[in-house]
């Protein structure tokens, strides 16, 4: 019995059929199960989105394949060139694993400050990436500015793609495909994550700026990657701002001024939590905070 309820005259959509959940012991078994389920199935990772389906008046799928107990998907592997993050790694585990790697400050902050402590201990990185309806996901812009790649597997093998591409295709990903890991290159860089919840914490941010810069010995920006989340339906890179920062020394105030000049490229999304104009208006301030934090690091 699921006791969500409804104020609609057609309330029972979430309650009609029982859902099954297959707890997969291994990646191979998960892929087999997904393949068998076809369109009736879906991946169940942390559950923090799926279990709220009744709240959104969305039906549960008939069959779920739970991936939380697959050891391979629950590990963070820190190599010399890349960090590999299993899709079922929780936000809390990710933040803890990256705590001593300053080049990943942006991701540690994104994972370590999202939602609330209990949710961070349930919600997974894979779920965060694979939920198109969740515009305020913290890890998406953080991973965009780190140039992450996403590995997707099916019974026929694995493929790897840039996160930008994954975001474009994720809502049409075949039901038997499973995000298995996120691969993030390592490098010398300063990074920071500036998120703006409406309270001090505990809500989804209404705007996010994730920043990663590489600076040469003279203090000049060699490479800059800035991603903006929650402002538009899908997070994306802010390439004009990145270009404007290259070749100059990073200065938080100047970066904010430049951001203010360029912010009109964002349309913003109107939400119950905040209007479109507000999300765009706060971007320069978030750029300044991100730059200042990165410089301080």
């Amino acid at each position, binding site marked *: *019995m*699921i*006791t969500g309820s409804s104020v609609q005259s057609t309330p029972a959509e979430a309650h009609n059929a029982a859902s099954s*959940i297959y707890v997969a012991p291994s990646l191979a078994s998960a892929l087999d199960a997904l393949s068998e389920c076809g369109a009736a199935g879906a991946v169940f990772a942390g559950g923090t989105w799926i*279990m709220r389906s009744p709240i959104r008046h969305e039906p549960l799928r008939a069959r779920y394949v739970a991936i939380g107990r697959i050891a391979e998907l629950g590990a963070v592997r820190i190599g010399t060139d890349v960090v590999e993050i299993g899709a079922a790694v929780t936000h809390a585990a990710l933040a803890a694993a990256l705590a001593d790697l300053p080049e990943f400050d942006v991701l540690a902050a994104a994972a370590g400050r999202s939602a609330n*402590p*209990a949710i961070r201990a*349930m919600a997974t990185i894979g779920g965060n990436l694979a939920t198109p309806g969740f515009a305020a996901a913290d890890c998406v812009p953080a991973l965009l500015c780190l140039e992450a790649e996403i590995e997707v597997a099916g019974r026929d093998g694995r493929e790897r793609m840039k996160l930008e591409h994954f975001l474009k295709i994720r809502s049409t990903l075949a039901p038997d495909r499973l995000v298995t890991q996120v691969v993030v290159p390592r490098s010398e860089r300063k990074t920071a994550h500036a998120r703006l919840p409406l309270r001090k914490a505990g809500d989804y941010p209404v705007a996010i700026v994730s920043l990663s810069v590489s600076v040469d010995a003279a203090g000049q920006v060699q490479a800059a990657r800035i991603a903006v989340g929650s402002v538009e339906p899908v997070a994306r890179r802010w390439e004009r701002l990145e270009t404007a920062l290259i070749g100059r020394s990073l200065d938080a105030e100047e970066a904010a001024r430049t951001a203010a000049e360029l912010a009109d490229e964002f349309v913003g999304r109107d939400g119950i939590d905040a209007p479109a104009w507000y999300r765009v208006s706060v971007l320069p301030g978030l750029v300044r905070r991100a730059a200042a934090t990165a410089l301080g690091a």
Partner: protein
Amino acid sequence: MALSLTVNGDRLASTADPATPLVDILREELHLTGAKPVCREGFCGACMVLIDGKPTPSCLTPAALADGCEIQTVEGLATHGQLNRIQAALDASDAVQCGMCFPGMVVSLTHLLTTRPDATREDIRAALTGNICRCTGYERIIDATLLALATK
């Protein structure tokens, strides 16, 4: 297929649908109504239970994923009827008002006491980001936590 749950040390079977939120099994089948399904979306913390020692909103935990786990509800925290350290401190501080949030508060803070013995006032505030109280304005709950931390 019956699910096997260990709740407060008792092994129990349930025939609930596997996607049933754990909170509904606890309340409606086992009549352990300490956990409260206040928001059913993980924001309020009133349904928090310890699953294998970890504070977890039972509204977002499907029965299938609780299968085989060690579950402790607020009812299981006062062993032999004695209030545990945080329960005693909350009682002594006259922190309780309507009481609906306290099962979740107690679960979250019981965990904090064991894992963060050096927690500061601000740490406690941050740890309670997912526990809503509508009556008390939180300060007394934080005071009580500091009191409990100080009485080892």
